[in-house]
């Protein structure tokens, strides 16, 4: 019987193949979206770790997180160095890394910070930053570039670079006379660090020596030697990453910063704000999941349509089976079996293809989007989804099966077509 059903299916292989293909593709889409979703969530949550608080000028928590960690958007205001020193001196503070943002280098953001940054910044389960080449910045005009910066601009240690004030890919006001040298290239992290040029806080001040109220000072540029002689101690920074001595003190310190009355400051817990931000993005994620679920439903409907459409031309087949002693339930069962088999094969093919695609694209996705695809084999959640698809396929096949049952009851052995 099963052999016969398979033969019958093989006789209609072009349509059967298309139905399988549609189900396989929809399975790939569904599993792919599901995997990208969880991988994106993990990568997203892994952008910053090991930092207890992020401090910036008072604005929104998500905004602070976006510009300090993701290099998206800008700070509305800066934080005075006085306040930063106060926080640093707080008995609960273990370490503090100042961040100064607002400049760019050929479309990549420039981050002013100190050397502690390379030691304190952690991503994905407390992984540390590592150098592919070179080392931290030692000189005033040293710069450490992220892996993507180095790759797309072709930088190596020792190359001279020019840092521009302001953002944007093409900057009119380049500080031609304050040339930097690449002192180090960081290993890829899959975080915004890869797209950042790191310099010292003093270097940020140096860039702005010839600037005044947002425009270049008239007159000749200040020579490098004179800049080196200047006092470049920064008076303000954009934000700061803070580590506390004991986790129990986080909230105390956060409250102290948020209620500080000399300057409006905001301290956020990165993990909590990441969750909040993900909650916003999550809507799109759910829409995506919903769409791919609909694609699966569409593919199954297509399969059922195919089985239904062949039903009429198979009435003779069904009449022959009836004449040989097959009950109408057997005839209906054959159709359900067919639809179930098509769905099962489609899902299995789709799962294999998904695994193949994730394995082969994992490196590329990580390098280009910073999303680590670490899961290659289906997990229990996905197996449940796959089982649900097959179950739904069999359920949908009950429709043609029921039609076949009715037809073969009415037709008996004679086909009145």
């Amino acid at each position: 019987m099963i052999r016969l059903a398979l033969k019958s299916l093989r006789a209609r292989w072009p349509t059967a193949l298309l139905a399988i293909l549609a189900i396989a593709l929809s399975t790939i889409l569904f599993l792919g979206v599901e995997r990208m979703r969880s991988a994106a969530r993990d990568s997203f949550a892994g952008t910053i770790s090991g930092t207890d608080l992020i401090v910036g000028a008072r604005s929104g928590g998500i905004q602070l997180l976006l510009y300090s960690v993701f290099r998206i958007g800008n700070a509305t205001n800066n934080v005075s160095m006085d306040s930063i020193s106060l926080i640093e001196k707080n008995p609960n503070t273990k370490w503090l890394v100042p961040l100064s943002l607002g400049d760019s280098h050929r479309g990549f953001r420039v981050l002013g910070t100190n050397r502690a940054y390379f030691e304190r910044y952690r991503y994905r389960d407390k992984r540390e930053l590592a150098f592919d080449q070179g080392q931290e910045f030692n000189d005033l005009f040293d710069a450490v570039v992220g892996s993507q910066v180095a790759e797309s601009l072709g930088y190596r240690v020792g190359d001279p670079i020019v840092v521009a004030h302001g953002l944007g890919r093409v900057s009119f006001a380049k500080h031609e006379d304050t040339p930097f040298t690449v002192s180090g290239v960081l290993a890829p992290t899959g975080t915004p660090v890869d797209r950042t040029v790191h310099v010292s806080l003093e270097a940020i001040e140096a860039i702005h020596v010839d600037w005044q109220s947002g425009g270049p000072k008239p007159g000749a540029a200040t020579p490098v030697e004179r800049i080196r002689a200047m006092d470049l101690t920064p008076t303000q920074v954009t934000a700061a990453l803070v580590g506390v001595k004991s986790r129990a003190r986080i909230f105390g310190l956060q409250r102290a910063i948020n209620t500080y009355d000399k300057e409006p400051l905001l301290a956020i817990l990165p993990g909590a704000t990441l969750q909040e931000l993900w909650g916003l993005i999550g809507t799109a994620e759910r829409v995506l999941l919903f769409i791919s679920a609909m694609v699966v439903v569409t593919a199954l409907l297509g399969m059922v349509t195919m089985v239904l459409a062949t039903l009429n031309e198979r009435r003779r087949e069904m009449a022959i089976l009836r004449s040989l002693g097959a009950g109408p339930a057997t005839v209906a069962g054959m159709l359900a079996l067919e639809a179930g088999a098509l769905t099962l094969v489609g899902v299995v093919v789709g799962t294999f293809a998904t695994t193949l695609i994730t394995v082969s694209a994992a490196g590329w996705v990580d390098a280009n989007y910073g999303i680590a695809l670490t899961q290659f084999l289906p997990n229990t959640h996905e197996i449940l989804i796959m089982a649900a698809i097959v179950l739904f396929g069999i359920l949908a096949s009950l429709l043609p099966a029921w039609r076949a049952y009715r037809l073969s009851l009415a037709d008996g052995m004679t086909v009145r077509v």
Partner: protein
Amino acid sequence: MSKTAIELQDVVFRWPGAGQFQLSVPSLQIAAGERVFLSGMSGSGKSTLLALVCGITRPDKGTVSLMGHDLSAMKSRARDRARAQNIGIIFQSFNLMPYATAVDNVLLPLDFAPDRRELVVQRGAPLEEAHRLLDALKVGAEDRDRPARNLSVGQQQRVAAARALIGKPGLIVADEPTSSLDKDTERLFMDLLFAQIEEAGSSLLFVSHDTSLAPRFDRSISLSEISRSGNST
């Protein structure tokens, strides 16, 4: 084996929802091994009678027995099994699964009739029996493994006969099996069919409107003689 292959007694049947059409057969008997020619005008209820004999439907009144089993008392699954077991059916056309080979078509009834399979297996492999039947019905060895749709109409009908005969069912029902064949092919078909039915010892109920075939049979009956059909009052 019982002495009668088919026995109808006081049968009244009306298709559900099919208007007023009604068939009543007061009495019809076909003995075991008997070859009966049944003629009737189209619309006289031939299909209905065959559906009753084959257990596709159940009479509203009266009894239908097949090999001594009372079909009219059985549930539909039991009637399906009885049909698989005891009857080989040859239609006018479209007898075969077009994508399956001649041999596979011949072997198909055995999937539904364990007793017939048993009988075949006792005498050797089912495949051998299928080959033997196809040989006897002059379907060449080169055509055995071709898909049925590639065979000529005459060959297809002979494959259908082989399929009806495998496992030696007690009754062969043939519903106008030669109406799509020309005279020569028809003669060949009838000769081979009769020879094999003889060998299998089956009864034959042969339905046709072509009465020129009737003299070959043990008995010839007309549906209008044994039944009343038409619009009931």
